[in-house]
């Protein structure tokens, strides 16, 4: 078991740079989730840790040992692939034992480890089967088992749940988390699914276009997104982001002033973007309203409803998440109130958080 350290890691394919210097310090036993839209470089980053891609610049260390030049097999890691990558011509047992046999472990030791992992993953009855005779969830478990038996320093997961159906995904998510907790193994987990990211991670790395936009605890990333990208990416439905004027310490949106905390107003200077999460909007009387929403489409989810529409008198799309099944229909004018501490402000030029 060991931590992983990434020091200004970069990756280029010819002249095209895809990873622009990522710094990350993963503590021993920590569960890190790298999340981002497709093409943001998250899988490439993981594959560089695994040793499947060369590192153009920077350094990756596992357990304090520089691994840049090491082959995957010498890095003491195990990886779970999106398509599981089980060896189709080998039984479940042989799939799990493959790495151990190569390592030249004695037969009893291999058998003990495989049986233990199989028991842990409820695969005991399937050891003689070929992967094609297993369901998606079972294949996923075999892939996990193959990683566990090797007792590596770190687990690498490359979107391991994206081939499963929604229900199974929730179940496997819990299993992965419990397994990682009980084994206490450092994990690096790549996904594009923000629910997976929020629920699994001790800390999140939100990536965009080859840059780690924010690294932090899921709840901090949610509460204080560092950039407009993170603000829009984490949270569902996505945060409303509006262009506003921030000159002179006050935020003005389409003429009227939006209250912000005193701490923020001191740092305001020019054009800003105002972010407000749909779940932080509450219906209110017309007099105390911060926003007036012209209702378009209403998505009723049972426990709550998501109201899509436009800010009154503008073409700016806006959404609110309201509890229960409010009697709202298209064309209504809905007055909404929000607390100043829920207003996120970003510099319109750099996209970075103000305050």
């Amino acid at each position, binding site marked *: 078991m060991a931590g992983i350290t990434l020091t200004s890691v970069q990756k280029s394919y010819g002249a095209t740079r895809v990873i622009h210097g990522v710094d990350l310090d993963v503590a021993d036993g920590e569960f890190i989730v790298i999340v981002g839209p497709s093409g943001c470089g998250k899988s490439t980053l993981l594959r560089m840790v*695994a*040793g*499947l891609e060369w590192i153009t610049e920077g350094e990756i260390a596992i357990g304090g040992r520089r691994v840049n030049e090491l*082959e*995957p*097999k010498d890095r003491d*890691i*195990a*990886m779970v*692939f*999106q*398509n599981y*990558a089980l*060896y*189709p*011509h080998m039984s479940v047992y042989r799939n799990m034992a*493959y*790495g151990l046999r*190569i*390592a030249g472990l004695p037969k009893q030791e291999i058998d003990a480890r495989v049986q233990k992992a199989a028991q842990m993953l409820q695969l005991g009855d399937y050891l003689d089967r070929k992967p094609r005779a297993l369901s998606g969830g079972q294949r996923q478990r075999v892939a996990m088992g*193959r990683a566990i038996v*090797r007792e590596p320093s770190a687990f690498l997961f490359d979107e391991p749940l994206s081939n499963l159906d929604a229900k199974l995904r929730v179940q496997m998510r819990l299993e992965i988390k419990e397994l990682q907790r009980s084994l206490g193994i450092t994990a690096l987990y790549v996904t594009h699914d923000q629910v997976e990211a929020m629920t699994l991670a001790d800390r999140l790395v939100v990536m965009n276009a080859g840059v780690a936009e924010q690294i932090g605890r899921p709840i901090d990333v949610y509460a204080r997104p560092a950039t407009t990208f993170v603000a829009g990416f984490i949270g569902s439905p996505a945060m409303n982001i509006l262009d506003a004027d921030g000159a002179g310490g006050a935020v003005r949106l389409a003429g009227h002033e939006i209250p912000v905390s005193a701490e923020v107003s001191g740092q305001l200077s020019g054009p800003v973007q105002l972010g407000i999460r749909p779940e932080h909007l509450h219906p209110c009387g017309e007099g105390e309203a911060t926003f007036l929403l012209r209702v378009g489409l209403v998505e009723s989810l049972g426990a709550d409803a998501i109201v899509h529409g436009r800010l009154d008198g503008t073409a700016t799309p806006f959404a609110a998440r309201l509890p229960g099944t409010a009697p709202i229909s298209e064309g209504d004018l809905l007055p909404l109130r929000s607390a100043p501490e829920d207003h996120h402000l970003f510099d319109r030029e750099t996209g970075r958080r103000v305050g």
Partner: protein
Amino acid sequence: MDKRVTFRHRLLPWLLLAPQLAVTALFFLWPAAEAVWQSAFLPDPWGTKAIFVGFDNFTFLFGDPNYRESFAVTAIFSFSVAALSMGLALALAVGADRVIKGSGLYRNLLVWPYAVAPAIAGVLWLFMFNPSIGLVAYYLKALGYNWNHVLHGGEAMTLVVIAAAWKQISYNFLFFLAGLQAIPRSLIEAAAIDGAGAGRRFWTIIFPLLSPTTFFLLVVNVVYAFFDTFGIIHIVTGGGPQRDTTTLVYKVFSDGYEGQDLGSSAAQSVILLVVVGILTVIQFRWVERRVHY
């Protein structure tokens, strides 16, 4: 859902099948039947009439040491051609699979030999290995080896095997390359992370997953070595020296056309037909069991 196409007209399906059936009848069923028929006759020395002899042609063949020798020659020849052409093709395909830049060029160049007619391929190798004027023979002599396949049976066999295998490498290469590229990269990466080196990955992951391709090519190559190599043998060695490269199919030709013993020649082609049939059944029955699909 039923995906079968139903024809409203009774005649249409037969019409659609007709070209293929005609080709099969004309080039396989008719000659095969003719061979079976002729195998029961013995033509007189002047070729004017044929005497019905029943199974005598077959009885004679099985008692003929030359014929039994020809079986051994065919076995050695077929095995060597299949092993050499498949082995080299696999090595080339593994190499080409790793190349990213200019792979299209490599592939195209490697396919060319397949377009060369057997007789031309034979002449090509014959010139290179000709004991008096061949380049390879000249260099071998410089190295102290006196190459003369006209005198030495082993060398003659080596030469026809090389020529026959060379022509088939392209075909095998194409299939092996396609097979290799169908193996998911993540499997090989998983094996690399599991600690397997390149050689180990090849023998424990790639080669077993390639087995459907290998099996298919084995069938094709054995049939090729049995039948399609006549031109090469005819040009390069003429079955010699001393029948050392007279395979079964070559013996059919030399007994029939050169020896004018049409009855025996017909009997031999019937036997050949049966042998290839049995070989194919064996391959499908036994080898297929060990194939992972």
